[in-house]
């Protein structure tokens, strides 16, 4: 399966990815968030963030990466807590990525394209930029006023 087919599939589920992200943030953090700009299909997820949380999702046919980018100042806005240590950031947002992947599996349009993805183990990176392979994905931000989190979802055929 070539990259363009994956991109077509991602295009067909981009609204699922955005709507589930909004619902997940709303349910998980009890906070209202919005999209200020459209999410995009990209050849490779990228970005430099204060915190980066990555989790894999896998099944027989696909390997996916869910990727959160968190600026320091957004953490307290989304969690409602000030001065969280990295361990707690990892706990809270790791569980968020776990829940988000699970919620994607509830949406028929998503599972028709990619099946049910089993959650992997989340990893937190701090103060740096990760270099990701060229795997097509969807990326965008969710905003609470001027604060935001970045969400990226990349996937390839297994």
């Amino acid at each position: 399966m070539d990259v363009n087919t994956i991109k077509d599939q991602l295009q067909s589920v981009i609204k699922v990815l955005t709507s589930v992200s909004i619902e997940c943030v709303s349910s998980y953090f009890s906070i209202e968030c919005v999209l200020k700009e459209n999410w995009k299909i990209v050849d490779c997820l990228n970005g430099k963030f204060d915190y980066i949380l990555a989790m894999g999702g896998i099944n027989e046919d696909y390997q996916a990466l869910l990727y959160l980018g968190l600026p320091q100042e957004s953490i307290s806005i989304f969690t409602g807590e000030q001065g969280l240590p990295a361990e707690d950031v990892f706990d809270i947002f790791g569980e968020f990525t776990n829940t988000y992947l699970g919620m994607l599996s509830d949406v028929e349009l998503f599972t028709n394209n990619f099946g049910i993805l089993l959650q992997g183990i989340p990893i937190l990176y701090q103060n740096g930029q990760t270099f990701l392979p060229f795997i097509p994905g969807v990326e965008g931000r969710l905003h609470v006023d001027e604060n935001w989190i970045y969400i990226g979802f990349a996937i390839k055929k297994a």
Partner: protein
Amino acid sequence: MPKTVVIIDDSKFLVKQIAEFFEKEMGFEVVASGTDGNDAVDLYIQHKPDLITLDITMPNKDGETALKEIIGQDPAARVLMISAVRGDAMLNCMDIGAKDYVEKPLKFTSEEFRKDFKDSINEAFGD
């Protein structure tokens, strides 16, 4: 005497939310909490709670394996699965002997979710 519960989830954030619900909404006593399947089995044996909640995706030992061990030790154990995992996992856990399966996210701010969660807990006791 309040009913007792052990809460098992690798997210301390969620353990705190779940514990608060059991204590404040259901009047349970949270006698222990743990973060993996090994904790689940050990704490169940130690405390013999009226109910134990189990996440599925956890380090060291997952919830499904812990469920099998707990039910193996005590077929009458009341186990409530709380997980973001979808698909066959739910059916597998019910087949093994879980009383119910609650899907994450846990929308504690939603009246409807709180009612459904209470119903699942009461269902575990045959109420």
